[in-house]
């Protein structure tokens, strides 16, 4: 306090606003903020976003309900329950003996570490780049199998339906199945007609999400 001011006239003049220097200079720099949500920028290709349950080329599900993803998950975000595929009852969802009847990921818990992806033995579970995962209630953030399943693409038929005739489980993994066959097409048309909105099967989901 006792010190005399050593500054000249100009420094005295600008002293009260000197602290704004950074502010003023920034006004002339390039803007770094993104105009989300109006403008959406692509993520890096390996960004860990929402999961997806993939399908075989004929539309059967790749997930075998093994729960290895649930086992690997450090956040205990995944719940899976397996079930037997049943050709007689027309309930075949995956090649082989077993499929995932219940599949849920709780995005309130998930830390997007990707360990589940590494654990999955069938490449059924992968991650998309989708990051818009916010909501205002718990239930909607627990994604069920229907939400996580990959869309039915060209050449695929939604499960359940039989395996490609003459093919075994291992043929699916060896890439011998490339698309749904006319037999499968016919089967699906015949059977899915009965219940247009798909077979009711995940009745446990409601209870499990609570």
């Amino acid at each position: 306090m006792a010190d005399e001011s050593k500054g000249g006239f100009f420094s005295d003049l600008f002293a009260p606003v000197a602290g704004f220097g950074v502010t003023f200079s920034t006004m002339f720099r390039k803007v770094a903020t993104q105009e989300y949500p109006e403008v959406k920028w692509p993520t890096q290709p390996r960004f860990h976003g929402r999961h997806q349950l993939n399908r075989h080329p004929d539309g059967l599900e790749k997930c075998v309900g093994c729960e290895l993803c649930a086992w690997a998950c450090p956040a205990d975000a995944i719940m899976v329950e397996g079930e037997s595929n049943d050709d007689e009852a027309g309930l075949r969802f995956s090649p082989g003996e077993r499929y995932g009847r219940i599949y849920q990921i709780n995005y309130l818990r998930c830390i997007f570490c990707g360990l589940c992806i590494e654990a999955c033995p069938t490449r059924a579970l992968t991650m998309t780049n989708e990051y818009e995962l916010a909501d205002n209630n718990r239930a909607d953030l627990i994604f069920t199998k229907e939400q996580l399943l990959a869309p039915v693409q060209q050449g695929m038929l939604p499960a359940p339906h039989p395996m490609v005739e003459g093919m075994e489980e291992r043929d699916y993994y060896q890439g011998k199945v490339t698309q749904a066959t006319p037999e499968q097409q016919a089967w699906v048309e015949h059977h899915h007609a009965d219940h247009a909105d798909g077979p009711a099967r995940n009745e446990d989901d409601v209870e499990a999400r609570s």
Partner: protein
Amino acid sequence: MTVTSDKSSGEAPEVEMVALTIDGLEVSVPKDTLVIRAAEQLGIQIPRFCDHPGLDPVGACRQCLVEVAMPDREGNVKPMPKPQASCTMTVAPGMEVKTQLTSAVADKAQQGVMELLLVNHPLDCPVCDKGGECPLQNQAMSNGRASSRFEDVKRTYPKPINISSQVLLDRERCILCARCTRFSDQVAGDPFIALVERGALQQVGIYEEQPFESYFSGNTVQICPVGALTGAAYRFRSRPFDLVSTASVCEHCASGCSLRVDHRRGKVMRRMALATPEVNEEWNCDKGRWAFTYPMLDDRFELPMVRRDGELVPVSWQEALAVAADGLRATRSAVLVGGRVGREDAYAYGKLARLALGTNDVDFRARPHSAEEERYLAEHVVGSTPETGGVTYADLDTATTVVLVGFEPEEESPIVFLRLRKAYRKAATKVFSIAPLETRGLDKLGGTLLPSAPGTETEVLQALAGDGTSEHMGSDAFAAARTALRDPGAIVLVGERLATVPGALAAAADLARSASGRVAWVPRRAGERGALDAGTLPSLLPGGRLVADQADRSEIAELWQAETELPTTPGRDTAAILESASIGEIGGLVVGGVDVDDIGHADGHEALRRAFVVSLDLRESTVTPFADVVLPVAPHDESEGSFLDWEGRPRPYRAALDTTAMADHRVLSMLADELGVFLGTRSLREVRAEMDALAPRAPQGGRTDDAGDPPSPVSVPSPGPGEMVLATWRTLLDRGTMQDGEPFLAGTAKAPRAVMSPVSAETLSIVPGDLVTVSGGGVRVTVPVHIQPMVDHVVWLPTNSESCDLRALAGQAGAVVTVTKGGAA
């Protein structure tokens, strides 16, 4: 060098000890110990697949190879040229064993074996039920090579085949350890599977020509070290890390098996046998393993209900209890508690009767019974425990002679059966069965039949004891039994069915006495022994205290802090209660866990119809249609408590599932509150504290015998033409309501059939495969016939199997039935 242990206590026979070193550590173990077990004592785990402590060594998998050096005659320790299987080799003095931990040779050998085992093993782990708890997975990680060198095509088989409706076999996964086949051959005695073919094609196969019949198949699923054998009910249901396990005890029979109950998200997924060496060793039966779905069925009661205008309507607890209390207060009431509830619950029923209802009319026997049985139980059974010199499982292991009477162990107490089979195999125990026919179960015990028509058991027992004259005296079997009984230490096992044969229980006790042996009563239901000791008989108070004894009564009255005297008038048994209720002498019934048809009493339905019935039950039962108030109670998996097994050994269990369902003792205490009486059974701790306050009292054989009423004369039934004497008992898997909801298990139940001798068949000109209709006492069933040597003019049928319900007749020993050929007649 051989060391003789002088540390062992005086009673135990001296065990010769052998000293050896394993991985450089010295250990001394009893002679004949296997090397693999000796290593376990040091905490060294040698990998293994085929080795199982409950089975004879076989050395099939070669996973347990270790390097062994032995001293030769001069005492120089020489290594053996090749690694040895440690599961078949017994220890020798001075032996030096090196496991994979210290020997590169052993480690390499084990890795080699593992590699070969994996050559044909599919990469099924993700879809395999054993994944996560699989010895092959675990040991491939701990003792296998990091990567595979196999680049060929694996041997494959079509995916699983059903060994039974309950057990699936996936041959690709099998590593040919022969655990399952040895179990079925050695322990169960049911060779339903065997190793067939040779070399790479060797596989587990089913005996095509024999029907699958085993009550113990579930154990093979549990001991299979890979996922080759899996249970249909648990298929793909969960993973080990999903499961929460609770140690429990089986509620299905008086064998008292330890169980592990695994549940996931509030639902029981599976049950496994837990090892308890004194009781079930490591085994259990299929019923105990798989019959756990009954509480999950839709007809489970959720809320209390009262009957209004003929309909049961759900109401609040408060209201239901008030209605129940009003109804019971208005009249004389009695208590019927089935043999299914735990000991603490039974205690509460007994206390409710005495303290709140002021009556001794309480009985746990929801089955054919008699006054003679009641006296026998009070004199010889109540209070008998392993500590007070009661017969134990261990005693069966070493018994010289076992006589079974009114008791079919395989059907009625499966673990007793397994122990007897072990005794027969290991200790050459001679088993005799007083029964009308030789069953497969008896056959597996190497047993001898002492043929006797139903109702004549007393005569045979007396003849065996040497104070009877009988035509049985002549036969070889009989002479063999007489000879065998000359060795002291015979054990007589009597079943609950003997209750209805006049004089038989006393005769069995006399026989045991005359052979300086012992007798044990083996009830069928899990709760019966506990209920007996908890004082739910008309003449018994808790802890074996007698209603008729003033001092005993005051002791209990003091314990209960009763304001008034305990009732002194002798109570009525189940039959008398039902009779009195059917004529209106008893107006109120508190019924817990009873299937009224099991009692087989003609007045059963009428009694329930007339009386005001308060039913404590889990699900809709035969009592529900007559119930005026229904109070829901917790099933076994949701309650804590204890049973006494047939030995009298406490078998405590904890609640596997944490639900709001209330145990019987709590509901009864609320009911008593409503009746204005403090029952003091609000919590398990309260009940246990009270029960423990009673000094244990050993059975006081013969204390009321002085009255000495001689057993009523034996009346031998005499069937007329077209008639036969009915012999019947329950099969392990039948229509019992606690097996509901498990179709896979039901698929392995024995099909009902009528068994008769060739002579009996001839008189009716019946040939094998014919249908016969058996009728009598308002019952009529039609079943296929099976002809085998047995007592003539006797027909055997299961008591309560599908389309064969003879419970109404089961109560009379030697009921005479009409048998006709064909189904229509």
